[in-house]
Structures are given as C-alpha cells and as structure tokens.
C-alpha cells in the first residue's frame, strides 16, 4: 500500500518535472533582435578592403554575416557596438569561425581601406572593414535601412562627426537578412541569438 502511494507520488512529481523541463527546453527562442521573414537574398555589395582587395557579401555564403555601418572617427556609438560584437564572438568560442563581421564605412571620404583594417583589428583580427565610392555607399546604406549624414558637430580636434543609424544586421547562411539588433544590444544577447542561428 505504502509502496503504491510512493509510486503515485513519484509519478506525479515526474509529470510535473517533465512538464517543467519540457516547457523549458521546448519553449521557442525569443530573439533579442527583430526577426525578418523574407527569404530574398540581401543586396549583394562589394567593398574595397586593405591590400587592394575587394570582398563581396556573397563571398561569405554559408556563414552568418554580421553587418555594421560605422566610421573610424566615430567616438562612442561604433566602438560600443563593435565591442559588444567582439564580446559575442568570444562567447561563441569555436563557433565564432562560422560568423563573419563586416563593417561598412559611412565615411568614404575619410576612411581608407587601410584605416578601416587597422580600426577593426583593434576589436578582432577576423573583422573586415571596407568602403566604396560615396555613390555606392549611399546606395548600400539606403538598401540596408541606414541613414547617415555629416553632423554639425565636430570632435575636439576639428574632425566632423557623422550621424548614422546604429543598427546591427545578421545575414543568414543562405544570404537573407534575418535579424536586426537595435543600438544598445549587449554582447551576451547577440551571442544568444547567433548561437541559436548556428544550432
């Protein structure tokens, strides 16, 4: 009798435990960025990078590509965002090999490919920084929803600033834009979403 009661209690506990575990493991992943549904290929662009080379977005098909629009004179927003991405890649460990980070310059007048390479290297040596003609940068930025303009403000040493949309975008392995992070997203939040996309 006692044994049967114990078995019953054990059974109830097991059901509750299974339900809790099931809910925890089967709950859908809640993304920290906005998920986009389009399966269309994101606009393929070419960037001039250090060493007189060019890279295209489509060169990285099969990897996740994190795209950020910024510039090397950027005093705070760009380093904060690229710092968060650096942290996220560190959190990913070996999985970080399946992620390519690309910074597109919104300052084609001042950012040379060499300058961009040196800038992104401070964050992570695998990051790519690239630029193009002002016309092509305007085109790429518009199609990626990035607004930018020369600001009225200047830095202490007289360099002008550029106001720009500070979102971060993730292109999936098939080349479709899947995720848009708002400014202020943390490294661990980026890492969680990237991990889920790489599962």
């Amino acid at each position, binding site marked *: 009798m006692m044994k049967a009661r114990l078995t019953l209690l054990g059974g109830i506990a097991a059901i509750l435990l299974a339900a809790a575990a099931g809910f925890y493991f089967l709950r859908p992943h809640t993304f920290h960025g*906005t998920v*986009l549904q*389009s399966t269309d290929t994101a*606009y393929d662009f070419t960037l001039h990078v250090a060493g007189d080379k060019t890279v295209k977005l489509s060169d990285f098909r099969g990897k996740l590509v994190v795209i950020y629009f910024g510039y090397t004179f950027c005093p705070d927003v760009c380093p904060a965002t690229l710092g968060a991405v650096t942290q996220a890649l560190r959190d990913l460990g070996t999985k970080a090999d399946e992620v390519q980070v690309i910074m597109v310059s919104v300052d084609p007048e001042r950012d040379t490919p060499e300058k961009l390479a040196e800038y992104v290297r401070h964050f992570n040596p695998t990051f790519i920084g690239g630029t193009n003609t002002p016309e092509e940068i305007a085109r790429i930025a518009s199609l*990626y929803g990035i607004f930018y303009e020369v600001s009225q403000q200047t830095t202490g040493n007289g360099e002008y600033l550029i106001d720009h949309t500070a979102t971060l975008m993730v292109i999936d392995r098939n080349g479709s834009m899947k995720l848009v992070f708002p400014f202020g997203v943390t490294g661990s939040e980026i890492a969680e979403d990237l991990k889920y996309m790489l599962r």
Partner: protein
Amino acid sequence: MNIKNILLRALYGFALLIVIGAFAFKIFQPIKVLPRIRLAPAFALTDQNGERVTNEDLRGKLILYTFSYTNCPAPCYDMAATMQEIQSRRDESNLGDIPLVLVTISFDPARDTPSALLSYAETLSANRPDWIFATTSDASLLKTIIGGGFEAYYEQKEDGSFAFTPTYILVDGWGVIRGEYRYSTEVSTADRIIRHLAVLADEAQNATGTAKLAYEAAHLFLCYAQ
C-alpha cells in the same frame, strides 16, 4: 506499473499536449499578426514645404508609402483617393496614441518641385506632418529607394509620362516593411490597409511581457492577417 513507465507516459503525454497545442494555435489562430517582411530603405527627401524628411524622422510611427507623380494624365490610377480614405477612416484602426503618417514619394523630381507638390497637396487638403509629399533630385538614389528598397516599379516613357505599378507599402515604427499592396483584390485596398493598421496597432500595444511570447508564436506559425 513501474516509475520508468509512468515517467515515459508523462513525457509522451506532454509531447502530445505540445503538438496538439501547436496545431490548435495554427488552426484557430487566436492572434493575427503581419509578417516582418524586410527593412524599408533609408532616405533623405525634400517635402512639399521645402523641408528635409528622412526615414529616421519617421521612426516610431506607422507609415504608409505610395509612389506617384502629380502630372499623371487621366485616366491615372488614383492612389491619392485611397490615401485620403485611409486618413479619414484612421479611427477604425484603433491606433490610440500611435501616429500614422502618409508619405507620397514622387518619381518625377524634374516637375514635382516642392511648390508643385504643395499645390497638389492643397488640392487634396493634405497637411504636413500627417501626409508628406516628397522627392529628391538625385535620380539614381530615387531609383534605389523606390525601385530597390520599396520594390515599386516605375519608368519614364518617351512622352514624359511614367509607366508604374500602383503600390502601397506599410512600414512599422522599427522601419520594417509589414505590408505590400501591389494588386487589386476583391476587398478594396483601403479596407485591407485599415484592417492591417489595426493588427499592427494591436501588436504594438499588447505584445509586452508574457503576451509577447504569444505574438511571437503567431509569427512563428505564420498566423498572418488576410
């Protein structure tokens, strides 16, 4: 019956419940959403008052875009009438505090100067900031914005008029395209857009905390409003 069996049954039962729940959600669709299609393009245009308007100025608002030109010879597909109807019936969408902005982008910057756009806006009793008429003299960028970003076709013909596909694009406060209306359906375009505005407003007002999970499930199960 031993504990192992009970545990297994409980697990099977729970898995079954999840599957039934998912099917029920998909079939009954208790929550409807609009897809997050893709990012709307960024732009800086000049409006009917000669002032600059950018996509960043419109962030946080619901925006309905259409693309046209003021010299469209009759019979011209009249998108302004649909825009006017949506503006006059905006209360039906229960938008609450969420601002709705209508934006007509002209693909004829040579003739649609700010003053031409202003006269046209006045004939429609359209006022900024509720209804913006804008364009840019940078023809290449205009093509990128309208043709590339909004995927709305237009092309100037030899006689100066334009061939174009009547298009309306609904964008949310995050700059994400949530509705594209390019073809006539049985239900009028205005009716569909008004209904879709209500769906967007509902999500913006209610998808917080735990309820956000239910809205995300609706996205996951493609429970899209018709």
